[in-house]
């Protein structure tokens, strides 16, 4: 069954989105993405040869084909206007249909499925004729328009405002060339437009112009050269200015460098200047001021006060600029909603509506994730993760652990939440003990620990002895309801202490390795019996004593060194043992060459290294 897509059919730019796994996803335009975001320009071009171009390619040839290139057709929807090109006539619906047809093709490619239905957004102030024309455009393009929704409504859906009770909201939509302010009332799934206002000649383009003129004037002042007549220089400048404008949204100052921008009688000229955010804000002050009027008017027409507005949403690329956000914030006296990209929210909202109509969003709300990693405490007071943070739930994961000491008949499971490698730096959500493990040498028993998080976020942890099938479990309901800032702080801590933690963890691993090797070596000596020569025995016993000393001393590099020397001596013994066994075998067999090689001593040695493969559960019985 094919999906219904959501379409933001804009005056300057258009975009489409669809729900995938319950999440709205922008459908990429076939010609690739542009600087600002994932939309494509709303351009349609009819060429002399009878070709039709849509989007970026149409824009790129617009200068060579002004009679055949159409942009901003949205302004003519619902009117009798006709586009006349090369002896043919097209209605606004025909032109818009070309844009919609391109979107349909892109969507079908992306989804690898047919797409026949769509939800399309329109400005809140569109009348019946304009809405019908939009629907007709869809039909011409081969799409059944199952719903027309208002752009501010779509934005509100994208921000999830339909889920937070009754509200009066303001949608501030500042695009490349227009400003639209809408006041709406939301409640019980109903969206009602109270008022709209705006400015059809105000947008990001004005900001670009201010900054470009400033740079040109300053350069003229500093170098005496006016770049305005040099098309190559202007081209480089325009591109660089756009990059600078976007950069200044995230940094306070940046450099504009255009070496060899031009040349005159006195030689080559270079443009190099520092541009600050405060300068940019100063330059666009008048643009910002013009945003005030529509907000005042919209409030007046809605008969509401600023205090009545519960939520504010910003839509459009230029609203990413801090100055725009601050302006709206200080005018309204409250903070704006965050969390959704202002350039994508209308298409996303349309996709959400499309999903609801397509039956995809019944009870299935957005799935939750675990905010912090979950795991247990293992040998050396180390935290071993079983579920990574940001894993979508419901989820489960199991891992097999073993005992740390000989004859350990119980294991204690300490459930930890957090990102730090050491158990003590994380939060303990709970503990329980599994008893009745049959006595065995350390490393032999197999205890399967399972973490199971259900759709409600309740954590079930169980430990099962695979031999006896005995099982113990614990259920953790509200694991320390942490706020977003707490979670972020914990993650930052983990990053901050990462280097230290790593060092400490490595130290613990060295100690663990030493313990394991001592255990295995002592065992092996016992088993070797007469096979080991007195000399070998002495050597090994000395190495064992050295290592034990190093352990008491606590110097990590010492411990590491002594571990290695013990290991070397052990290898000598084990290879000797295997050689002897091979010789004995050969002596037994009448025929030739089936002796096993001496290198298999490694296998014995490496089984002592299971510290790496098996994690060991801490036993707190002393």
């Amino acid at each position, binding site marked *: 069954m094919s999906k219904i897509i959501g379409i933001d059919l804009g005056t300057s730019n258009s975009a489409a989105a669809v729900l*995938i*796994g319950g999440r709205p996803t922008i459908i990429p335009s076939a010609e*690739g993405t542009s600087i600002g975001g994932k939309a494509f320009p709303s351009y349609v*071009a009819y060429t002399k040869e009878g070709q039709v*171009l849509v989007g970026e*390619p*149409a*824009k*790129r*040839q*617009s*200068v*060579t084909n002004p009679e055949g290139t159409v942009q901003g057709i949205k302004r003519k929807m619902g009117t009798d206007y006709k586009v006349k090109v090369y002896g043919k006539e097209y209605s606004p619906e025909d032109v818009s249909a070309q844009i919609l047809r391109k979107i349909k093709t892109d969507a079908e490619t*992306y*989804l*690898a499925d047919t797409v026949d239905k769509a939800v399309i957004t329109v400005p809140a102030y569109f009348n019946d004729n304009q809405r019908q024309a939009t629907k007709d455009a869809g039909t011409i393009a081969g799409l059944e328009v199952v719903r027309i929704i208002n752009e501010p409504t779509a934005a509100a859906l994208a921000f999830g405002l339909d889920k937070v009770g009754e509200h009066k909201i303001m949608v501030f939509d500042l695009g490349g060339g227009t400003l639209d302010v809408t006041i709406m009332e939301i409640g019980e799934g109903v969206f009602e437009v109270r008022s709209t206002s705006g400015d059809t000649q105000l947008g990001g383009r004005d900001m670009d112009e201010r900054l470009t003129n400033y740079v040109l004037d300053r350069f003229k002042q500093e170098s005496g050269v006016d770049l305005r007549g040099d*098309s*190559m220089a202007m*081209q*480089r400048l325009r*591109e*660089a200015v756009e990059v600078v404008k976007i950069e200044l949204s995230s940094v306070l100052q940046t450099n504009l*460098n*255009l*070496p*060899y*921008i031009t*040349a005159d009688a006195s*030689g*080559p000229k270079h443009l190099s200047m520092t541009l600050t955010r405060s300068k940019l804000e100063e330059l666009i002050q008048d643009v910002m001021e013009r945003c005030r009027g529509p907000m005042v008017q919209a409030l007046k027409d809605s008969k509401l006060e600023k205090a009545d507005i519960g939520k504010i949403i910003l839509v459009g690329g230029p609203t990413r600029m801090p100055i725009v956000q601050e302006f709206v914030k200080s005018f309204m006296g409250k903070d704006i909603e965050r969390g959704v990209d202002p350039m994508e929210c209308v298409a996303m909202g349309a996709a959400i509506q499309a999903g609801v109509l397509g039956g*995809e969003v*019944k009870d*299935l709300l957005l799935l939750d994730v675990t905010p912090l990693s979950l795991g247990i405490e293992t040998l050396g007071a180390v935290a071993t993760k079983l579920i990574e943070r940001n894993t979508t739930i419901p989820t489960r994961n199991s891992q097999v652990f073993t005992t740390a000491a000989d004859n350990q008949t119980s294991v204690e499971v300490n459930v930890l939440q957090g990102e730090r490698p050491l158990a003590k730096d994380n939060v303990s959500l709970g503990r329980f003990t599994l008893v009745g493990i049959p006595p065995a040498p350390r490393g032999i028993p197999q205890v399967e620990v399972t973490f199971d998080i259900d759709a409600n976020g309740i954590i079930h942890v169980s430990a099962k002895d695979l031999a006896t099938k005995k099982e113990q479990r614990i259920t953790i309901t509200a694991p320390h309801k942490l706020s977003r800032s707490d979670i972020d702080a914990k993650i930052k801590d983990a990053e901050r202490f990462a280097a230290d933690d790593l060092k400490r963890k490595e130290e613990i691993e060295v100690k663990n390795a030493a313990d394991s090797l001592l255990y295995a070596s002592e065992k092996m000596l016992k088993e070797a019996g007469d096979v080991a020569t007195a000399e070998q025995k002495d050597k090994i016993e000395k190495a064992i004593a050295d290592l034990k000393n190093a352990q008491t001393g606590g110097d990590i590099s010492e411990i590491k060194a002594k571990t290695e020397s013990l290991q070397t001596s052990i290898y000598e013994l084990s290879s000797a043992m295997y050689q002897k066994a091979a010789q004995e075998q050969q002596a037994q067999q009448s025929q030739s060459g089936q002796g096993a090689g001496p290198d298999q001593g490694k296998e014995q040695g490496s089984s002592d290294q299971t510290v790496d493969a098996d994690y060991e559960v801490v036993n707190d019985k002393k």
Partner: protein
Amino acid sequence: MAEDAEMSLEQKEDQCDSEAKIEELELQLCQARSLSEERLDLLMHCRADLDNVLRRSAREKEENVKYASEKLIAKLLPVLDSLDQAAKHDEGTKVLYAQLLGILSAEGLTAIDAVGKKFDPYQHEALFQVETGELEEGTVAEEIQKGYLFNSRVVRFSKVAVAKPLNAAKI
């Protein structure tokens, strides 16, 4: 006789009760069945979505590997422009420019050949038109900024001026 009638009334009541109970159970069964079908449908949708996402992920991963350097190279193009200009004034820079260009070409960067070719909106961006009697209409007359392909994908469109015929004298 009266006794018989009484008994059959009780029996009738019992019968009504069990019939009502059966009806209730049948209704519950029906509801449970339709809920189950709904859930199964939803589950299949989820699995299908997952499969599709995995498939798309794999495809995108392949593409990313192929075009991994594309973003970085696009960012370096303004540097190439500057070096190109500088090279006109200084021999040393010429060598430097050639060196950098050599490395990038080996990676898959090629300049788009624009001047004299027919204007192609999939490779060129027209900045303005120039009137000329020497070139055919629709041919690229001037290159204002070089365009580049990276492994046959356009990473920057050539900025060009397109030829148009001389203004015919008004009759």
